């Protein structure tokens, strides 16, 4: 039996105080001053004690990240001098897709490597857009058992990035008669993508490349950003090239296992030339995820490309349209187009853009992806607050460029450890032991539209409002 894949997490505390959700307001002028029942001394989370320590070291008081929102200080203060507000800085984090709670949870996972756990039930909207309009299935009587999925009853999360032959042929003596192309396999269905914005100087990209190397996954990187320092991780890098410039990067191509060419007309004629620079090179084609993506996929599956890599926008939406569809629908369309044409098995589909949580990875695979890439989440793992100050050439509040690669790569590894464990939880509940088996397995999911039609349709009739209203 091959060695079981595990990700080793190790606590990597933040360098800066993360922005917490709550701020405690204290009307000190009303304080009795000598109260023996002071709630600050009784705080279960000890946040005020920490605050005193910060005062001693002359740092800015900070107790936001650790407040657990139990309201006891508010309710027990003898003078009622405490109140609470949402931390104004918390509101400014991210945007309506990369919500503050996503950032906060990503920081937690990068810090601890643990799966986010909470009590008291689900607290979000009933249904949302895109991936938030589907649920994954489970089975009451299922293997593997949950207590075994993190070790004894192994769930394989490997995917391939290499092309597969249509079918295997055997000679009369039953020996294999097909030339089986080399296999490029990665142990997790998630790769890294150079973020479209953000601090990429200093050691940031190197940190990401190192984490990719230690995890055994791959990282898509602009060829222009490659430097000698990346050499130890070259096998885990996929330089992104165009048909006009790939000749200029022959040296890099010779060191990597895979390269990506941006889609352009006539690209099929360049693949052999690219491969001639490094025989055995695996090739990905980077394609904008727009209305033409499905027909483009069908066209390119006829070539010798190994993987098709589709780029959605930062929110996981289709490009170049006023009414974009989400990844959930576009992945499904592309996957099914290839299935209908008996081509799906030949090629791998990877999707980028808007993969913000572990559940997005699982649901993208259910919709038909082989794998996904993460981009902004890598920056967030390094404490990025998505404040976008860097876009205006202003200094980064968490000094991303100064991040130590040891610390940073561990933060990314921790995040991926938590994501993989969440994938295992979801797959374990379904009774699926192979990430490759999960691909396109919509029977193991439930779509909002279907549940409404099957269960509410017979009761309430025809639905008049779409799901996300």
């Amino acid at each position, binding site marked *: 039996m091959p060695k079981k894949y595990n990700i080793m997490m190790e606590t990597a505390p933040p360098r800066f105080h993360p922005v917490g959700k709550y701020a405690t307001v204290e009307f000190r002028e009303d304080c009795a001053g000598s109260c023996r029942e002071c709630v600050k001394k009784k705080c*279960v*989370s000890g946040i005020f004690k920490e605050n005193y320590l910060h005062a001693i070291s002359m740092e800015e008081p900070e107790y936001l990240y650790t407040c*657990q*929102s*139990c*309201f006891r200080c508010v*309710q*027990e203060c003898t003078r009622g001098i405490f*109140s*609470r*507000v*949402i931390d104004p800085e918390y*509101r400014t984090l991210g945007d309506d897709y990369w*919500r503050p*709670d996503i950032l906060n*949870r990503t920081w937690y996972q990068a810090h601890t490597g643990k*799966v*986010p*756990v*909470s*009590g*008291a*039930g*689900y*607290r*979000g*909207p*009933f*249904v949302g857009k895109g991936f938030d309009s589907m*649920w*994954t*299935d*489970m*089975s*009451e*009587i*299922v293997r593997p*058992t*949950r*207590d*075994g999925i993190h070790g004894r009853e192994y769930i394989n999360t490997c995917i391939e990035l290499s092309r597969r032959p249509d079918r295997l042929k055997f000679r009369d003596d039953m020996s294999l008669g097909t030339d089986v192309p080399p296999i490029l396999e990665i142990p997790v269905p998630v790769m890294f993508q150079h973020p479209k914005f953000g601090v990429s100087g200093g050691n940031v990209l190197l940190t990401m490349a190192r984490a990719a190397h230690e995890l055994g996954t791959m990282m898509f990187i602009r060829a222009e950003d490659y430097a000698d320092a990346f050499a130890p991780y070259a096998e885990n890098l996929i330089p992104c090239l165009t048909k006009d410039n790939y000749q200029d990067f022959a040296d890099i191509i010779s060191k990597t296992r895979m390269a990506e060419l941006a889609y352009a007309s006539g690209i099929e004629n360049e693949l052999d030339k690219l491969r001639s620079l490094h025989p055995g090179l695996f090739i990905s084609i980077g394609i904008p995820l727009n209305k033409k993506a499905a027909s483009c996929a069908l066209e390119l599956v006829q070539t010798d490309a190994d993987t098709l890599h589709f780029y959605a926008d930062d929110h996981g939406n289709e490009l170049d349209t006023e009414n974009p569809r989400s990844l959930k629908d576009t992945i499904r369309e592309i996957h099914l187009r290839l299935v209908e044409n008996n081509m799906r098995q030949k090629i791998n589909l990877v999707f980028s853009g808007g993969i913000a949580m572990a*559940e997005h990875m*699982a649901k993208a695979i259910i919709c038909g992806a082989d794998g996904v890439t993460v981009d902004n989440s890598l920056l967030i793992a390094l404490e990025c607050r998505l404040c976008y100050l860097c876009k205006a050439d202003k200094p980064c509040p968490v000094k991303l460029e100064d991040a130590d690669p040891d610390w940073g790569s561990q933060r990314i590894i921790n995040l991926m450890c938590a994501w993989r464990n*969440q994938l295992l*939880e*979801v797959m374990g*509940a*379904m009774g699926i032991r192979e990430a490759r088996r999960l691909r396109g397995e919509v029977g193991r999911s*439930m779509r909002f539209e279907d*549940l409404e039609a099957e*269960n*509410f349709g*017979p*009761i*309430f*009739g*025809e*639905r*008049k*409002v779409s799901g996300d209203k």
Partner: protein
Amino acid sequence: MTNDKWDPNKKFQLPEIVETPSRFRNTIGKYIIRRNARCVSCGLCAELCPCGVHPRYENYVLPLRPLAHKCMGFECKENDFFCVDRCPEKALTLKVNPILETLGDYRWPSEMLIAHWEMAETGNLPKVGLEHSLGCSGGGFDKIRFRPAESDKYPDISDEDIDTSVRLNKRGDGRPEKTISIPCYGGGMSYGSTALSVMVSRARAAARLDTLTCTGEGGYPLDLLPFKEHVITQLATGLFGVREETIQFAPVVEFKYAQGAKPGLGGHLLGDKVTANVAAMRETVKGNALFSPFPFHSVYSVEDHKKHVDWVKEINPEVLVSVKVSTPTDVDMVAVGSYHAGAHIIHIDGSYGGTGAAPDIAKKNIAMPIEYAIPKVHKFLTDEGVRDEICLIASGGIRNATDVVKAIALGADGVVIGTAELVALECVRCGNCESGRGCARGIASTDPELGEMITRDWSEQRIINMYMAWRKQWCEILRTYGMRSIRELRGRTDLLVHLDYLDESERIKYKPAPMKQMII
């Protein structure tokens, strides 16, 4: 098959409502009313306010801090007793409490929480204008409404004469004809996940309400024995604390196959919460995390399941058997399988509920919400011709009295309540049930200090008060439709509408779904 009609001779003796204020000094309310230094303590506000916002005691003339949570707020402006306007010194100010923004979430918005605290305090519907029936989730129960009724059906009967009981054994198999007097019973919360005082007070409340509560999977504390007729023994995959005698105590044994908050993931009690007492109860080692595996390692078919049901029935010839499952795609098939295995109750637990700690990814994403599962299972059991021989109990995201009757109208016989009972004990849904020493408010903690924060008398009465307030709402709805028993409401989907399935002209006749954007 047994007759499921209402028995007019069986009347529920309603437990007494006793005002049970918050255990905290500063109760959180919707409004803040402040008294400034201009106050001369004339006492006019105390005389005027019918809600008791301004406490004043004999022989004590200094002004006291207003009990703002009792204030009716700006609705009171029309009244001639509006203290803010009547104060001769203009010493009072009123505003909406800004803390509301930091409280609650889409499913349990701040007003729903505060309303339930008030119901648990007074046993009545809140006087303050609080939205206690609808959350901001934008779907499911929050978009389902009852149709207006024909007014001539409205019967002139008191709450006491309305039957809210549910029959648990419909199989006619010679086992006890067990009935609970309200259409709810308490969900399983184990010793270890909640404080012992909480467990015992829930059992005491269940006894006085003539309903049930459930041990959860943490063993059977002996403190529950005086109420054993009202305590379900849960038999889950870890089999913690399950013994022959705990099955013999119980009127109902619940097989827990899965739970809605973490379907397919079993249970996990973190080592921090495994104190010496918890370990002793579960017959394990202090400080060691405890897993309830998933699934039952000895059940891989309906036949295996039947074998387990038969064991329990053999050990206790008087017991009823409940089977708790989650809500996968094939939940309807699972329900029928459980019926054929001999279950009396099929308990389906939807994905959005749960009380204890669970991975966030599971709570949000795995299995379907209960709103879909109820009609699915009800219809399938009906089509299979066994609906009237099994009791269908729903749980998981049923938050308030209106959700209960909506669930029943969708097809359930009754529901299981977990979170709302904890909210009655002043849970703020901060979600930190599992971390460190556990719940800082002493509800979900076995910490030596925190676990003793709640007294049994106080929490028993708070739970009773909340259910009595709920019962008033159920009776009002039943009267609206001319019904004398809640059993008449089961499966009456013709009384329901869903806002998204109505034309605009029809939709505006109903209360719109609250759609507040929240920061979670």
